[in-house]
């Protein structure tokens, strides 16, 4: 299954990057199993690596993860009337692919089953991938010699490319966000440029409203 392979590769490279930045292997595994989000984890280590404080880093990661709260809303309609413990467990692996397959089913029972199946794939391959990366990471001597230090931004670039394909205003959001971070770097303390680039989100939304009618978004 192509999806499982891509999650595995993403997990492995995320963990590789973390180990190269000097993160303890057990911490890498803990974030794999408990944070359950590649983009939030990457935002966290990105801000920390750029010299930001723990508070700024967690704030940036949570802003990225806020979208899981939104994804949970359509999913919650499929869990209407289910026991609290079931909804509590179902909340743990809320990610785009699982919610997407649940969307496609026409009744709630099969939607929950598809969601569960997809989530199992996501969770298992993500954790296995991260574990693999944590082990491989310690075998690579100096990341700079093999150009491994660009693996992190390149991973982000691939993620951004995937999102940008969705619509023109998403792509525009990325360009503005990048621009803000660069311009802000010499002007404000480390860690802040990333938080400022979030302003691009409201500009992207504004662009969608401006383009209304012409754009399929």
């Amino acid at each position: 299954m192509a999806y499982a392979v891509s999650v595995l590769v993403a997990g492995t490279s995320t963990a590789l990057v973390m180990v190269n930045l000097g993160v303890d292997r057990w911490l890498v595994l803990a974030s794999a199993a408990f944070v359950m989000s590649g983009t939030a984890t990457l935002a966290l280590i990105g801000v920390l690596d750029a010299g930001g404080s723990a508070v700024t880093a967690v704030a940036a990661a949570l802003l990225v993860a806020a979208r899981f709260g939104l994804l949970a809303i359509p999913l919650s309609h499929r869990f209407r009337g289910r026991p609290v413990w079931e909804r509590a467990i179902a909340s743990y692996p809320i990610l785009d692919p699982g919610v997407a397959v649940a969307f496609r089913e026409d009744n709630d029972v099969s939607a929950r089953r598809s969601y569960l199946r997809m989530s199992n794939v996501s969770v298992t391959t993500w954790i296995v991938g991260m574990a693999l990366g944590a082990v491989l990471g310690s075998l690579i001597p100096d990341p700079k010699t093999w150009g491994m230090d660009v693996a992190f931004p390149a991973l982000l670039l691939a993620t951004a490319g995937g999102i940008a394909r969705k619509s023109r205003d998403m792509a525009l959001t990325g360009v503005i966000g990048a621009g803000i971070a660069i311009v802000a770097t010499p002007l404000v303390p480390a860690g802040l440029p990333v938080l400022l680039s979030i302003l691009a989100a409201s500009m992207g939304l504004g662009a969608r409203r401006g383009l209304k009618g012409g754009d399929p978004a």
Partner: protein
Amino acid sequence: MTWPIVVVLALAVYALRATGMFIGDKLIKGRVRDTIEYVPMAVIAGVLVLTTFTTGGSLTLDARAAGMAAAGIAVWRNAPLAVVLIIAAATTALVRAVS
């Protein structure tokens, strides 16, 4: 990155998901909901340029930029993730070796 950071992040991310699952309908609507969809892209783009063009908090231009340019072409051509990463790392290493 330390244990307290990971624990706090893990709990908070779970709380975000559970909030959406249990009371999302009542809590979030309209413009906030629309804006949140754009936040990941904005943050990812910010972090990606900072990790490419800064060293220790100041702007720099080095071999990483070449690697990222090559990676950009690979992403644009729809290359698989592993290929993108290998191209980025190889280009960076190559530019570093000759400069």
